[in-house]
């Protein structure tokens, strides 16, 4: 399958799920999809297009939260980034762990760093932060203050 066929295929197959396709460069494509169709699209990309999951990156945009799922199709050297926008304050999305195991740790990281809840994750607990880190304090959110009194007190500083 060539690059054009892949993109055409995705557009046709997921007509109702895709919101916007940004064809940035020959190697990079950003596709915005609806949050409820994530698992469907990802299953197709991972299993049928034989893409490898790179990672997911969560971005706090103040009004909403964006999660980008990056997939690399190595045969055609195309990096597809699926963009999902979550409206605050209800930050919830389906977990990808049932599709492939590689999403396990990164979802735990986004959960603790940005406070996004992953439905259906088998073991959603902290990955990097210490056990006694106060709940609801998310270090990568834009409103996180280093001098957050609770956080500092609970760390014993």
């Amino acid at each position, binding site marked *: 399958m060539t690059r054009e066929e892949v993109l055409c295929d995705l557009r046709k197959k997921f007509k109702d799920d895709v919101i916007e396709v940004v064809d940035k*460069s020959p190697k990079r494509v950003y596709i915005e999809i609806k949050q409820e169709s994530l698992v469907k699209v990802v299953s197709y990309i991972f299993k049928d297009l034989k893409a*490898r999951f790179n*990672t997911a990156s969560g971005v*706090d945009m103040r009004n909403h939260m964006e999660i980008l799922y990056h997939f690399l199709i190595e045969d055609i050297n195309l990096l597809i980034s699926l963009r999902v926008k979550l409206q605050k304050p209800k930050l919830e999305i389906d977990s990808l762990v049932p599709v492939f*195991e590689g999403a396990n740790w990164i979802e735990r990281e986004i959960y603790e760093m940005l406070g996004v809840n992953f439905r259906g994750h088998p073991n959603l607990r902290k*990955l990097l932060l210490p056990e006694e880190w106060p709940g609801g304090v998310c270090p990568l959110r834009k409103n996180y203050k280093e001098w957050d009194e609770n956080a500092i007190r609970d760390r014993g500083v």
Partner: protein
Amino acid sequence: MGKTTIPIGPYHPLQDEPEFFILTVEGEKVLDIEVRIGYNHRGIEKLSEMKTFDQSTFVIERICGICSTSHPFAYTRAVEDIIPIEVPERAKYIRTIIAEGERIHSHLLWLGLAGHFLGYNTVYMWVWKLREEILDVMEILTGNRNSYAMFKPGGIRRDIKSEDIPVVIKKMDSIVPTLEMLKKAFIDDPILHARTKGIGILSKENAINYCALGPTARASGVARDTRKDSPYGAYDKVEWDMIVTYNGDVFDKLVVRILEVFESIKIIKNCFLNLPSGEIDANIKDIPPGEGIGIIEAPRGECFHYVRSDGTNRPVRHKVRAPTFMNLPTCKATVIGEYISDATIILAAIDPCYCCTERMTVCNNIKRKKIYNGKDLIKLSREKTEILRNKMGVK
């Protein structure tokens, strides 16, 4: 027989980095494993959001001392992807040379440690002695053994002098016979076979399911290498082969790494022979709003950086994904069912990344206490490099 829980870490003499493995064993067999990480978490992604694009390069370099080229390489490529811009040819070649030098010393470091984990300390000493020679070469080329500070968005910071090149090539050639000997010592040794063959097998299906990367995946028959699949730098301009083995056990991971060292030497020599002349920096002025992704093949696998800019001089978001993040969870597939004596080498087989290395300075006696400041340290470091250059015959 009852179950027993065995903790390894967070601080353990065999580990070089704080990691906490909780093994549940029945007799000698491992039934379950739990990994806890985060003891080295320093919030670098958050820190990077507070620095300018140029300053971030130095922060990112300090994520890990061993991968001190991979992270800036991926980061600068991500920034260049935002604009987008191509770096000059000469910069591409020099970047490739530095990245491959890092791969050699990183793989040698792991091979030595593997010998150490198996109680084969002769191999450990031999390999690390050889690694010193590579670090000397890197010091000649960049002025430092680790953390080279060669990268900047748009190109490289310092050029390689043409009079250094013959000395470096000679040095590279001189380590090949020792490497050949070590290769035989690794591949033909019956003790190493007994300890590593058929142990900790990661099947191809599991490698794909866990999204394993680099030598860990290539030893399981997943023929994927970012340098071939999505070429960057000068990798598509010089001749080299991807090393793939198919059994997925510890021995195959070892074979992949030692053979990759030879490929890296080949790449470095080819790069020197074809090194084009010209500019080394594209002189980036402003970073426009947008987002960029940089992927490169670090010694342990693909290193991934995502940078988003809003048009100011600082990144809005900088995501760093090191290869061990994807490789470490595979221990669930490899360790369970094995004997506890093999667990350490299986856990080490993915080459978990050191977070930081430090260069030591001499501590003084109590009476004549002298405190070095930054300038003194730089002076000392320059003097040391000068001594090394004289020793290796560089003018």
